């Protein structure tokens, strides 16, 4: 599970460098998010724009990551491709996360 982390305009961004977050990837995803976000304070932006497929295990791993960060930090999402967006909408998890169309839109909201 390849994840990269960066900081733009003061916002920590975690970018998933894989096409799939499925059952086989879920555990590694959760561990990697925990690793790359360790020690920070701010809201984390998860950039999903490379992800073209997610199943309920992948969704669960993202939810679990949010729960690990909370209550101190928020996890918000950007760059949901249609297939990923669909899973969030069907399960109503889109109402739980802050979801932004693009990283740019998320940064505009989160900075300052």
């Amino acid at each position, binding site marked *: 599970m390849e994840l990269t982390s960066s900081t733009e305009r003061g916002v920590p961004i975690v970018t998933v460098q894989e096409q799939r977050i499925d*059952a*086989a990837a879920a555990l590694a995803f959760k561990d990697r998010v925990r690793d790359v976000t360790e020690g920070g304070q701010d809201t984390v932006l998860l950039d999903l724009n490379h992800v073209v*497929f997610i199943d*309920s295990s992948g969704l*669960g791993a993202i939810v679990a990551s949010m*729960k690990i960060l909370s209550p101190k930090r928020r996890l918000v999402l950007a760059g949901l491709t*249609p297939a990923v967006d*669909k899973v969030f909408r069907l*399960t109503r998890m889109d109402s739980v996360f802050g979801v932004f169309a693009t990283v740019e839109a998320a940064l505009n909201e989160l900075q300052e």
Partner: protein
Amino acid sequence: MGRRPPLPLFSISLLGVEDAVREGIAQTLAWLTPLELSEDETNTVQLVLAEALNNVVEHALAGTGGQTTVEIRGHHGASGLDLCIVDKGIAMPDGVVPRLPAPDVTVDVADLPDGGFGWFLIHTLAQDVTYVRRGKHNYLTLRLAVAL
């Protein structure tokens, strides 16, 4: 139904472990190429298969550690795409398809469900879900309204 090249009744065999699911889905999609599915249809196939296969691996075959295989069988016809998943694992609870509602997400973050959406997604995306046990095998049939 448009005039598409006919799809034979295909079958794919995969090891009954989590790591084999992705390849099983990929092989299914390869068989479906002639149907020229839309992106959304392709995602429906992938998602329903992933949920059903993950369930088989995690529940029906729990603890078998990959000594047994799972089959994905497919048929395309006037009523859509039928996918049938065959495994030699334990039977469904009560011998019927679980019909679990979506877990509630209007809860505190600490109480959010990080699982339990599998059957909900299957029932939402499939037209029809049927289950039979015959001999030592489970047969789960998923009818998808794609390539109609």
